[in-house]
């Protein structure tokens, strides 16, 4: 995510403008040297992990360890053997079945309450090079589109000032830089913001780095421009992203359609899922072509096995969760009023079926992982809203929700937990939306209905004297 004013930096900037290492320094070891590389510490348990058929993080870290040992010392700002010490400490944890990382701290960059996660070793004498091994979260570009020039420059900075190890990407979506020392944090932040034009992401009790699916950039199912709103809300809520004042974390995730490629429904406190109001567009010719076997179902995604001829009845009509489709051998009919936007029919026959043209998104709230009360999926609260610049309608909802959560939320209470504690009824009152059947999670188990006075015709104000005239003691 480019810093404001630097959105087009990489249209003209090249890797050579900011590179630190020469080609010879980057390609500085042979396959033979790598195969014979011996880590500074004995790591038999970790080396066992390299023997399976899968790619191994141990092999990756060894590769970086060898590479660092062969770089000139004046081109490394933290010790060359950080990767060796890291492997040594992980091996120790495998033996003892205990972590040796101390968690959290006051480290960070000036003025920011997030983006840096403090990590310290509690075995600093054994593994001195990783006495500190802080993580940095870097705000990824929308939909994770990169230029190779940018990635090379990022890797150079990280090899120079950090361990060279990255996690592309963390589950939040950020580019995660794993392991550096405290004194390198400010210089890295300077390099990221000035040379690369990117900012740190969110961590702690902040708005976390918003993330979005590939959206209209490549996907015909996108019902709104996920990248644009992701960028807009990231920039608009910079203060919430960097200066923590929430009860706990808060996540926005933007899915262009109900296929939910960034899994917003399972992970975001506020999930934006693209949808449409009108009918699914049907090309009857193309439907017949699918049935005749002229077009491959699922765009050929399952073509590696012979599943037999395509059976529209069995593979589409009977699987519709709303049972709102009908095929008479010539024509496909959809009762759109009953469609629940499962996307199955559109995914199977993308040439024949397309999303409607009256598009926007549904907003759902409160998904979270299992800490309190178990994991939960988002609650549909706004069935349809327009998603158009400058997104003022959406910002108004965001702020209403934040005001309520900041007022009522307990320390470390996610929005979903607050909704559970205070009730959906209370939450939709805050949003100012009416209750709808889709909000009902399960048949009610509580037999009592508590009416509010304004919901009862005539209210319940009584004149006690009038009452006593009719009902003497």
């Amino acid at each position: 995510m480019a810093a404001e004013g630097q959105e087009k930096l990489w249209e003209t900037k090249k890797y050579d403008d900011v590179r630190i290492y020469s080609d010879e320094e980057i390609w500085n070891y042979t396959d033979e040297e790598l195969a014979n590389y011996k880590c500074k510490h004995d790591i038999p348990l970790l080396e066992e992990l390299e023997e399976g058929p899968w790619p191994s993080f141990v092999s990756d870290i060894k590769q970086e360890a060898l590479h660092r040992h062969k770089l000139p010392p004046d081109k490394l700002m933290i010790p060359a053997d950080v990767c060796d010490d890291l492997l040594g400490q992980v091996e120790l944890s495998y033996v003892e079945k205990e972590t040796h990382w101390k968690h959290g701290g006051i480290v960070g960059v000036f003025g920011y309450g997030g983006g840096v996660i403090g990590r310290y070793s509690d075995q600093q004498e054994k593994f001195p090079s990783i006495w500190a091994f802080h993580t940095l979260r870097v705000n990824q570009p929308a939909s994770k589109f990169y230029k190779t020039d940018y990635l090379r420059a990022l890797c150079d900075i990280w090899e120079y000032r950090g361990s060279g190890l990255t996690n592309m990407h963390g589950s939040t979506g950020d580019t995660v830089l794993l392991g550096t020392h405290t004194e390198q944090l400010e210089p890295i932040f300077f390099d990221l913001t000035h040379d690369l034009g990117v900012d740190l992401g969110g961590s702690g009790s902040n708005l976390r780095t918003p993330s979005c699916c590939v959206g209209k950039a490549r996907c015909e199912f996108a019902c709104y421009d996920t990248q644009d709103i992701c960028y807009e809300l990231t920039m608009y809520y910079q203060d919430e992203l960097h200066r923590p004042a929430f009860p706990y974390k808060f996540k926005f995730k933007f899915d262009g359609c109900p296929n939910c490629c960034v899994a917003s429904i399972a992970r975001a406190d506020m999930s934006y899922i693209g949808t449409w109001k009108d009918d699914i567009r049907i090309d009857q010719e193309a439907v017949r072509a699918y049935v005749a076997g002229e077009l491959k179902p699922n765009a050929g995604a399952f073509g590696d096995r012979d599943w037999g001829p395509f059976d529209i009845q069995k593979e589409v009509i009977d699987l519709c969760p709303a049972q709102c489709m009908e095929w008479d051998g010539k024509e496909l009919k959809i009762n759109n009023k009953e469609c629940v936007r499962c996307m199955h029919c559109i995914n199977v026959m993308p040439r024949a079926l397309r999303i409607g043209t009256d598009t926007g998104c549904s907003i759902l709230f409160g998904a979270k992982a299992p800490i309190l009360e178990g994991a939960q999926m988002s609650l549909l609260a706004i069935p349809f809203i327009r998603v158009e610049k400058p997104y003022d309608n959406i910002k108004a909802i965001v702020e209403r929700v934040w005001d309520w959560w900041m007022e009522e939320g307990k320390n470390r209470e996610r929005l979903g937990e607050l909704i559970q504690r205070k009730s959906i009824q209370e939450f939709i009152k805050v949003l100012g939306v009416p209750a709808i059947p889709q909000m009902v999670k399960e048949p009610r188990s509580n037999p009592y209905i508590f009416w509010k006075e304004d919901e009862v015709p005539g209210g319940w104000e009584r004149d006690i004297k009038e009452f006593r005239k009719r009902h003497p003691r």
Partner: protein
Amino acid sequence: MASIDEIKKVIVDFATNTKKTKFYFKDMEKAVQKVIPDAKPREIKKAATALVNEGTLVYFSTGSSTMYGLKGRGISLETEETGKAD
């Protein structure tokens, strides 16, 4: 409406005198609203941010949640890095 300086003063008093050396934003908010009932969360956040920028308060982050503390009280960068406070 309270000025930012008044809110900052209440925050510093709270950070100095509270038993805990690290506290959540919510705890600080409650302490401010006890003295200045009409102080809004956003004003308190602005005051706390100003105190962080001045170097009076520090953030303490576990990675998942964030707390505030008075600089020099309780854990410091030095004790954190050497592990001597443990």
